[in-house]
């Protein structure tokens, strides 16, 4: 597996298009924040943010043109972070699903809210 130092020159047009796409997505994020989607508020915001992050990584950070090993390393890291967060959320989001006794919102009496 050889990592050759080849310099891919991305056309200015691509950079500008990606830049415009990022702007548009930012505007969408702001607009959407005024509409109430309930539980989907967070999901929509995160999906848009993720798309933006992918665009930056692929084009501005050259992941698309670089050795595929870097892409693999980056993807694997993302997968493992997702595993960590999703499996942890299986715990924190489901605490009261079977045993109702535990379902006490711990934030209600928190000191931080007294201040």
């Amino acid at each position: 597996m050889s990592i050759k130092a080849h310099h891919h020159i991305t056309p200015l047009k691509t950079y500008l298009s990606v830049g415009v796409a990022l702007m548009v997505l930012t505007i969408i994020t702001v607009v959407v924040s005024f509409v109430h989607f309930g539980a989907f508020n967070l999901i929509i915001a995160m999906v848009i943010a993720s798309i933006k992050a992918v665009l930056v990584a692929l084009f501005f950070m050259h992941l698309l043109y670089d050795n595929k090993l870097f892409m693999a390393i980056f993807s694997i890291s993302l997968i493992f972070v997702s595993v960590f967060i999703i499996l942890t959320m299986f715990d924190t989001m489901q605490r009261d699903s079977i045993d109702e006794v535990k379902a006490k919102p711990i934030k209600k009496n928190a000191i931080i809210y007294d201040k």
Partner: protein
Amino acid sequence: MSGNKTEVEKNYLNDQKGIKSWLLTLDHKRIGILYLYSIMFFFFIGGMSALLIRLELIRPQEVIVGADTYNQLFTLHGAIMIFLFIIPGIPAILGNFVLPLMIGAKDVAFPKLNLASWYVYIFGSLFAVYSLVTGAVDTGWTFYTPYSTSTDTSVVSMTLGAFILGFSSIFTGINFIVTIHKLRAPGMTWFKMPLFVWASYATAIIQVLATPVLGITLLLLIAERLLGIGIFDPAMGGDPVLYQHFFWFYSHPAVYIMILPGMGIISEVIAVFSKKKIFGYNAIAFSSLGIALVSFLVWGHHMFTSGQSEFAAMIFSFLTFLVGIPSGIKMFNWLATLYKGSITFETPMLYALSFMFLFAIGGFTGIMLGALSVDVHLHDTYFVVAHFHYVMMGGTVMAFLAGLHYWWPKIWGRTYNEFWARIAAFLIFVGFNVTFFSQFILGAKGMPRRYYTYLDQYQPLHAFSSVGAFVIGAGFFIMAFYLIHAMVRGKRIGRNPWGALTLEWTTTSPPSHHNFEEIPVVKNGPYDFDRIRVENDKWIYKEE
């Protein structure tokens, strides 16, 4: 076993002299030796604290230490054995020494990074020692919140030490991954690599992927203690169970950092001392990677009684059973390798067979504990203590000892006294079972772990267990004597005393500074005992 004089005269041990040549060395073999000395020093401290713990537990009343000191002793034992001995043990000592030799390389890919990893290890261990001197730590090696954020002991310096040690581990991991990718000798394809190299590769992946999470966790804990950020504090909207998620996301894969390289050693030793081609090479290689992958999905089984949701507990329980598959694949392949082999029982093989016997018990009881309903009752009892000692000591330490005895002649060019080595192996095996099998029974009867005192009904088994610990201790003292004797006065041996077919046995014992006279070209598989036998260091092809 022919001792060639010219071979002995010029080697990595004597081509440079003086303390500076050791402290600034970039030779992977010398760095392995530096690690050997430092890790063995901490193994000695961890072992002595284990003996003190067992001595204290010989009866329910105070024997030698008070309750607070006892808490500090078991934390000392756990933290030192995990962070300073068993995690770095096999990769840093044996991996450093033999991995480049096994793939026919002159050194690791980044020799300076390799030396840096040793200095980082020493730096981190100084923090650990500092926290022991300044009032020790009494949290257990897991540093669980909320106790670890409220106790007065030196949690910050101890966790900072573990944080720094993590970098040493990452450095070694990166080095091994790059070395295996880039520095294999001509002809050594991925599937001609010795299985120890495969296991080291899987280990390195976990080291690089999981260790940063431990770093984050320990930094969060330090921030919690010093700044009161409240991420683990319910009063401030935090969650103490979150600490356990963070901690075990690293520490469960870390269990496989400990056992995987051991499994690699067992694959080598079983094949060489059966003089038989290893059964299921690909299956063993891929099961290492399988274990590495599954290891990231099971951490919640440490938290079945922590207040974790039942839903998560069920998922983790199910996922935990998956670990049994790649582990079982390895066990069956080793057994199949033994079948109809020309088995000889030299010391490395005795430890390898001990490993198979003890790891089987450790693995099965692990599956028992992975079952949610059983674990709720056995959690935090001596059953768990016995289980992980069967895996960690019965597994990893036995494999480490197998590897140490297997490569000791290569490392020093001299061999040890086989008679005393067998006596020590016997004492350690028997002592181990006396110590820890009794703890399975203690745990099943309800004896909680980490308690300073206990009901009288547990006393006979506790005393029995303590006797076993001292038998193990006797075994290790004998081992220390004959191994040190072997370094200085042992019988000189030739290149290939065991008749093995991997590359490290084709060079001199001890190897020269650059490992090989010329870069080896690999034509055979590492276990082609069906085609090749070795007599007096010469390879004889059977078809010729």
